[in-house]
């Protein structure tokens, strides 16, 4: 294809040359994040004894695995320019369904796991369906569904944990592969790879990006935008369920409060990872690697600060500040894109 198009540079507009080279590199979040991660890790490794111990590395890696999965769940719906406040609630609900299936109903794990993930997708479908049919922004819809999902779950479980799960479940949480690497991190890396391929090489993935960037244009190009947006919410639900299962494995039990009240403890990492990673809040552009790096940065910062005995509330404030900065960076990105006529 290059010879078909390489002869036609002569009508280059001034703007589009700015898009290459140094500026693009400087604007790339992945690059900046990798630098920040290296810097933070280096400083903590040198100043905090025990930060690089095998156990510490194992728990950091495991936490990166879980936080990335939570971030990916949110990323899948930010693609549409929307959001899903109910990720935490869906994650916990799916974990409780899994707990019921594995502990009470005696369903074997290879079946219980996909069933729990499918259940998460069903909850995501409900979100997506209502968002598309009502035309109301996903913020309000998922604020409502967060309370509904969580409320029903508490009612059905009587707020009781499932803490006699098959032993394989807590074993998964402790399993190390190749030294200090948690199996949960490996699972996340596999999902990252799958999602990267999904957005790049499948029709559905491309349609999600198209519908997210400009729903009207996508619709007029023959894409069934409504269905695609519902599919995005289902993907979010499935990934949130997977994150819930991973948290269950780490905890060793399915606990209704494991994501905080209404699952709200997940919201900060859910937004931090993709937004730090360069996923555009207005939709249409994702970075799976960025989300992974974003979650890694947040986890390393949190672990380091905890080891430094910084109070947890200060860490939360610090994460909030980080989210604010990330959102400002997102606005900046948006303005740069707009100035170049790309939005």
């Amino acid at each position, binding site marked *: 294809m290059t010879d078909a198009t390489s002869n036609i540079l002569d009508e*280059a507009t*001034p703007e589009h040359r700015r*898009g290459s080279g140094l500026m693009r590199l400087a604007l790339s979040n992945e690059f900046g994040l990798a630098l920040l991660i290296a810097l933070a890790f280096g400083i903590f490794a040198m100043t905090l004894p025990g930060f690089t111990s095998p156990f510490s590395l194992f728990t950091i890696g495991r936490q990166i695995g879980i936080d990335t999965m939570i971030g990916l769940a949110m990323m899948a719906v930010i693609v549409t320019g929307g959001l899903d406040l109910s990720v935490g609630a869906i994650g916990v609900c799916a974990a409780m369904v899994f707990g019921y299936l594995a502990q009470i109903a005696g369903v074997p794990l290879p079946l219980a796991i996909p069933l729990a993930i499918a259940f998460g997708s069903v909850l995501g479908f409900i979100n997506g369906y209502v968002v598309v049919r009502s035309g109301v922004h996903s913020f309000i819809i998922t604020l409502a569904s967060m309370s509904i999902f969580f409320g029903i779950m508490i009612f059905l479980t009587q707020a009781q944990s499932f803490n006699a799960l098959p032993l394989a479940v807590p074993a998964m949480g402790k399993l190390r592969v190749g030294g200090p690497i948690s199996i949960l991190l490996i699972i996340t890396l596999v999902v990252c790879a799958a999602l990267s391929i999904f957005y790049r090489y*499948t*029709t559905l993935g*491309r349609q999600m990006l*198209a519908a997210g960037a400009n729903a009207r244009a996508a619709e007029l190009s023959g*894409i069934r935008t409504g269905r695609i947006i519902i599919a995005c919410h289902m993907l979010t639900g499935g990934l949130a369920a997977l994150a819930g299962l991973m948290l269950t494995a780490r905890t060793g039990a399915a606990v209704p409060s494991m994501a905080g009240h209404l699952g709200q403890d997940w919201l900060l990492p859910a937004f931090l990872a993709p937004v730090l990673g360069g996923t555009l809040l207005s939709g249409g552009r994702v970075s799976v690697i960025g989300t992974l790096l974003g979650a890694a940065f947040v986890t390393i910062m949190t672990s380091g600060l905890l080891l430094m005995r910084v109070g947890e509330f200060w860490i939360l404030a610090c994460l909030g500040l980080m989210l604010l900065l990330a959102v400002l960076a997102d606005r900046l990105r948006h303005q740069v894109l707009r100035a170049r*006529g790309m939005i």
Partner: protein
Amino acid sequence: MSALQVSHVSKAFPGVKALDDVSMTLRGGSVHALLGENGAGKSTLIKIMTGIHKADSGSITMEGKPVRFGNPRQAAAGGLGVVHQERNLVTRFSVSENIMLDRLGKHSLSSVDYPAIAAEAARWLKLLDLDVDPSTPVSRLSVAQMQLVEIGKALSLQSRVLLLDEPTASLTPSEAQVLFRILRRLRDDGVAIGFVSHKLEEVFDICDTVTVLRDGRNACDSAGLKSLNRDDVVQMMIGRAERISKRAARSKPATAPYLELQDYSSTAGHKDISLAVRPGEILGLYGLVGAGRSELAKAVLGLSGQTGGEIRVAGRHVKINSVAEALALGIGYVSEDRKAEGLILLHSVLANAGITVWKRLANALGFLRDATIASHVGPVLKKLEVKTPSLDQTIGNLSGGNQQKVSVAKWIAAGVKLLIIDEPSVGIDIKTKAYLHDLIHELAESGTAVLLITSDLTEMVDVADRVAVMDGYRIQGLVENDRNYERVSTAIMGLIHGRKAA
């Protein structure tokens, strides 16, 4: 003394010299045309005048005094008003609030004196012959009226220089005439008017002097238009004489219609629409803005509900509920609003050109590779001479003409049997426009049915085989096009205005 003088202004962006030693002089009491093809530097020049960009060298003076505006606000305060191509009105606010938007009160917390701003706004509305109540929300105005409100807003800032960027792009000929009458009066009052347009007829109609830019340089600097003719100006714009296309009327294909509407009514408000487009035929759909033409296209695509009548595609009775179903039936639609509806500006040329064929090219599992798409759409993009550094280039960075080519290319790549093209040459330079006209003919010659919607009568007479005339969401009649501009345009206008008189 000149009202606004641009002297030897140069501006370079990394890698490209956008303006090179450009000069232009606007005098009070005169209308000055700023012409040039897309990418010639018109927008950059306007942005420099209004302070959005800084010039690398050169100077700008107003009434002899050097000025250097830091932003459009300062420019407005300095007496340089600009009416941009895009609407910049708060549609839910009233006309008077819009006109007085940045002067609603002495400071942010002072209360708004509505009678005072209404009175002030009424003064400008009167000057512009705009017979609307200042308290009317802008959303209830027609496009032409909104345009006048914007001009009123610019004038109310005591502008002595008024720059209009393609003010007639969304106006019908008669609305444009109203605008011109007002511009002439402003001119007679001593305002210096700068006029950017792609329509040369208008330029010769209203302008006194002209500056032509080509590739960022002056092809001419503030020359009198009296001594020039149309060919001279075209010559300066494109560097060679315009190929005046005198197409012969084409023979009507005798094939069965590909798309046929019979007594079709829609929830959008269409009543008893009957028309047919045959393979190989270019059917024009003409009407004033608001006649329901684009709405008809979108209704047929399934974006509005059908309330009566019948749609037949290739002789088969069909119901179309979505664009996806329309595409499956071989119907494509090139939107008049390229940026909002036609393209996904954030994504690459390849993604935009291939969006219609992803499904078809994917394997059984839904996987597809860029190379597969590129091998499919690449030849089409090459044939249409789309100029892009690579297929991965973000499409928002291409010129308007190239963007428009891609929005046509994606339907050709999809192999549609009927292509609905809505206002193909809005915001496009002459060269690309002529190219698109050739392309539409070529498509028809190869057996595609084309439904062409345009508000440009010259374009309609030049391209269409037959013209269906629409007004008030109904078809008023059909005019055979024999390329005789006088006869065809008279017949079309008769169909539109005959009904109104009755």
